[in-house]
């Protein structure tokens, strides 16, 4: 159990490519922090710098108050789970898990106890004598986690541990990681490119792009108040719709005018615009698919035509084109439509939609920053 502190951490490769820029982050004891971002954003590199598998070009990494920049991975008090499991193919599951303990010359009876305990927690007791190649993907990942568990480390690092699993197994293992976290009660740093994993697992999420931190916050914070356009589009599935439009101020009330409609900004968002004294201007308006509703017409309504209707079970994802050809995605709970309404929704069908005024996001077209932050 320990805190991890990164101060001005930078990674510059020999070819002068900067993979991570001035990374500052304070990870508290027993916190579960997720680094998330698209490929090449520097999330794995940062994790590997914490692990000691990459040199740190600039800045410091502290674990439990001690600067570990020059320590070997084994001396940092960390355990790590790799994306491809990295099990030793020539050793049995038991030997894989026992490897680190034997290197430390732990007595064999203690090794036995620890390995069998870990195996029991992870439900792999029956496979202890098997070689990794005789295991399924999920079982292999469990062994990899078991190998990290027995080290009693201060910080648990996971580098895309679920990426190689199929969707169903991924959901199952995600739940198991949450349970494991409760059992181990230690500091976790988890890297993923999957925003769902980030949202469900993390106490805090670090969203990265091109080596820069875009935002750090709780899942709710980053979802409800994305600091910039990148975060807004990255978090949430399907991704947020972005529309270039104008923000108007009439009689102390804010309006947006997407596609010729005039929609009032309501609730907290309206209040916040007023508090920040945001002036009427051209903006990038962000609306999540679940905050677009079907409408009967009128001043608030945007006419559009349905292009694709994806039936997801509990909800429909409607891809619609507006008059100027912009594509929007609308998410409608299936339960909100009767069967007649549902059968109408075929490609080519004309319909009206409107945006919910209290759930809009406003970004500066130049800086792409959230106007309310």
């Amino acid at each position, binding site marked *: 159990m320990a805190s991890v502190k990164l101060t001005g951490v930078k990674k510059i490769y020999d070819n002068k490519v900067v993979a991570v820029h001035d990374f500052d982050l304070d990870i508290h004891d027993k916190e579960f922090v997720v680094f998330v971002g698209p490929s090449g954003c520097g999330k794995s590199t940062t994790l590997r710098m914490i692990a000691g*598998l990459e040199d740190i070009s600039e800045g410091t990494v502290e674990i439990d108050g001690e600067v570990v920049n020059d320590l070997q991975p084994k001396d940092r008090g960390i355990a790590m789970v790799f994306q491809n499991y*990295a099990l030793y193919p020539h050793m049995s599951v038991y030997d894989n898990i026992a490897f680190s303990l034997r*290197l430390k010359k732990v007595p064999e009876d203690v090794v036995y106890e620890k390995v069998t305990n870990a195996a029991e927690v992870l439900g792999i007791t029956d496979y202890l004598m098997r070689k990794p190649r005789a295991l399924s993907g999920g079982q292999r990942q469990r062994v990899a986690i078991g190998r990290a568990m027995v080290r009693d480390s201060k910080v648990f690092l996971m580098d895309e541990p679920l990426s190689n699993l199929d969707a169903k197994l991924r959901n199952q293992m995600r739940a198991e990681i949450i349970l494991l976290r409760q059992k181990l009660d230690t500091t976790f740093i988890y890297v993923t490119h999957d925003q769902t994993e980030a949202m469900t697992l993390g106490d805090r999420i670090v969203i990265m792009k091109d080596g820069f931190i875009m935002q750090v916050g709780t899942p709710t914070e980053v979802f409800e108040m994305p600091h910039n356009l990148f975060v807004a589009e990255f978090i949430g599935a399907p991704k947020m719709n972005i529309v270039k439009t104008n923000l108007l101020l009439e009689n102390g009330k804010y309006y947006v005018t997407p596609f010729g409609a005039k929609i009032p900004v309501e609730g907290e968002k309206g209040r916040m615009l007023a508090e920040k004294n945001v002036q009427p201007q051209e903006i990038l308006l962000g609306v999540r698919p679940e905050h677009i509703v079907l409408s009967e017409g009128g001043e608030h309504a945007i006419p559009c035509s349905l292009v694709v209707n994806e039936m997801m079970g509990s909800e429909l994802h409607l891809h619609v084109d507006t008059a100027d050809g912009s594509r929007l995605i609308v998410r409608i709970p299936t339960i909100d439509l009767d069967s007649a309404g549902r059968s109408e929704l075929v490609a080519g069908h004309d319909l009206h939609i409107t945006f919910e005024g209290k759930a809009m996001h406003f970004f500066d077209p130049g800086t792409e920053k959230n106007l309310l932050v």
Partner: protein
Amino acid sequence: MNEKRHMGLRTLNRISNTTIYILLIIISIIWLLPFIFIVLQSFRVESTYQVGYVIPHEWGWQNYINLWNSDFKRWYLNTFIIALAAAVFITIIQLCMSYTLSRFRFKLRGPLMRFMLILGMFPGMLTMIILYRVLSDLGLTQANAVPGLILVSVASSGMGYYVSKGFFDTIPKSLDEAARVDGATRFQVLYKIILPLAKPIVIYTILTAFMGPWGDFVFARYVAFGTSSGYNVAVGMYSWLTNDQIARMYTTFCAGGVIVAVPVTILFLCLQKYYVEGVTGGAVKG
């Protein structure tokens, strides 16, 4: 229609397989003939000179007894010491070199590898005269040929890194990293993780390292020139083929050939599974 075509394909397949097998059998017989010939000659006791027939009229162990009573023991021991020492040192050096080039990234790594590749393209013969001078200055020729030959075999062994480096490259780096996080030093990573996984290539390296000096003739003759106690088997036995010796020693020479082939054959038969895996390993291991 389909069935007919299927039958046609099967017949074609059978014909081509049969042809290939017959060809291979013929090649094997041609290839084996000299070996069978030498073995048969080594048991011929009615005369020691070359004769116009293959199957001996009288069989016996006399040629092997002659071997035992000659300098052959010394030469055999010399060769064995050189080959064994070369196998041990070359294997260690070459595997360490390959691991380093496969796993470490350092300045001038690329140029160094290319340099060694180009250097390796020059025939070893080019260095013979200067190497002889160096060995001679160090006192490692003639009677001291054994350490001299070990030195020559081992000295440039790091340059033969390609095959094993290629194999190491196919072992995921994350295994090294996992082991390092688990507490292993670089050396422990090499011998606890990488080498057990690279068993075929280790055996391939040992075998090739052993075979080189075991069959060496040109350089061994040069270094041990004129001093029987420094000869290896190839050089020693060659001295029996001179005009004045051959009539007396021809069948003994054949017996020596058999004895020289025995350990290598046994080694190969035991390890051939790994040897083939090693040669093809880098290419097919995913």
